[in-house]
């Protein structure tokens, strides 16, 4: 019969040669391998003290960006919620009033914006769907908690801070 793939191997049941059944040469070889590793530098990251850098395109917790003037970019179009395969994003919207131009960039904005971090699979489709470059995933992890309520992230936790040091830099993700 013709094999379906050329990955199949011919199994051999030949008996061990005298050298092989003496075990000792193979054992010596094995001991040499482990001894080589004994003197090798460990690959461990000592976690609480040292932390490994995440890649810049790591898909961690989300951030809702503000523009350069500090106004929220999100216009509550709902494309991210539609794109979300886990249906983790919900929002309500309202029209911007006079005098709120500093707060919201577009004429419509999200009054509430909630991501259920337990449902979220961190696929990044919301990031891709967003036409306003408002939502991004960051190389930070969502912290663990014992309370279920702690995983419903509203605008208070998603929107980045106004102060320059509270801004989250996502320029490296945008380049890719």
């Amino acid at each position, binding site marked *: 019969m013709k094999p379906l793939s050329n990955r199949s191997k011919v199994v051999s049941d030949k008996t061990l040669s005298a050298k092989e059944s003496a075990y000792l040469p193979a*054992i010596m070889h094995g001991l040499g*391998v482990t001894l080589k*590793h*004994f003197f*090798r*530098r460990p*690959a*461990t990251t000592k976690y609480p003290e040292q932390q490994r850098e995440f890649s810049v395109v790591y898909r961690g917790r989300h951030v809702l960006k503000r523009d350069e003037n500090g106004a929220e970019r999100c216009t509550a179009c709902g494309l991210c919620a539609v794109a979300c395969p886990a249906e983790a994003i919900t929002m309500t919207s309202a029209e911007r009033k006079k005098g709120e131009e500093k707060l919201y960039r577009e004429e419509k904005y999200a009054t509430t914006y909630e991501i259920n971090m337990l449902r979220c699979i961190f696929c990044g489709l919301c990031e891709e769907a967003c036409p306003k470059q408002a939502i991004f995933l960051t190389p930070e992890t969502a912290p663990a908690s014992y309370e279920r309520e702690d995983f419903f992230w509203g605008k208070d936790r998603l929107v980045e801070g106004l102060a320059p040091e509270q801004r989250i830099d996502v320029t490296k993700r945008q380049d890719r």
Partner: protein
Amino acid sequence: MEWLFLLDKTVIAFVAFAITLLIATYSTYAERKVAAFMQDRVGPDRAGPFGIFQPLADAGKFFFKEEIIPNTSNKFLFIIGPGIAMLTALMTSVVIPWGDTLEINGRMVSLQVSDLNIGVLYVFGVVSLGVYGIMIGGWASNNKFSLLGAVRASSQMISYEISMGLALIALIMMTGSLSLKTIVEQQHSFWNEGWFSWNVFSQPLGFLLFLVCSFAECNRTPFDLAECDAELVGGYHTEYSSMKLGFYMFAEYINMFISGAFMTSLFFGGYNFPFMDDMGLSQNWVTVIGVFVFFLKTFAFIFFFMWVRWTLPRFRYDQLMRLGWQYMIPLSLLNIFITGSVILFIEYIK
């Protein structure tokens, strides 16, 4: 003078006991470190600098864990099992010559608890009893995994004891004595009458056989069929918890240390080291250095035990039995034959 002699021996026995326990404790730490280094990890490093208090933390955990005795088990035997394992492990250290004689105020103090003239035989007897700890513990647990582990352990130990004994017979034919002290004294220094004085150089095959058998006797990988977590959960100590489990593990490490010490005395010259007579040191200094050398050699063996554990996978049961009965025993018989021929030949040319 009689009570002074008793005092000496008591002190030596207690010190040997304490050192044995200390080394067994730190073997657990060493094992974890060696395992980690061989797998490119760092191992325990949280308790104290480099994690050197890890064994204390482990022991504390063992003491505070809940102790479970299955209600279907034979309670008396279940409790006595780990005790026997520990007892037999500790008993063997009596005949090990830790060092030469020390001279204190004109008295010669031999650094050995008891120089039995049947020392080797004594060790063998006690080691054979060691299987009872595992056997009784495994049987009394009333658990199929424990029983299987116990059965495997006992058949393995009995099989390998034969070739172990036969490997030693060749050595004893050479030394002509069963006293460990005499055997060590015969290996004085390093070079004697045109040949190395350590027995490993005149009995290489015997040493190899003995080494393999001692792996089997200590239930260490590649012969750890008594435990084999993969198939038998934990083998004979599946049902054990708390410090009883600790006792079994501890007994294993003590056994490892003792068999290292035993092999050092039998094959690697015990407390003898090269150029010990040419350094111009007093007898006491030579003895003190000798004790350090003895422990150095023993630690090398312990390291070797661990090294092999993290290198080789476990033998299958039938492979183990075939190796024991079809290779080890004929080889040790061959070794006896060769040794006898050589001894006769040497006598003939003299």
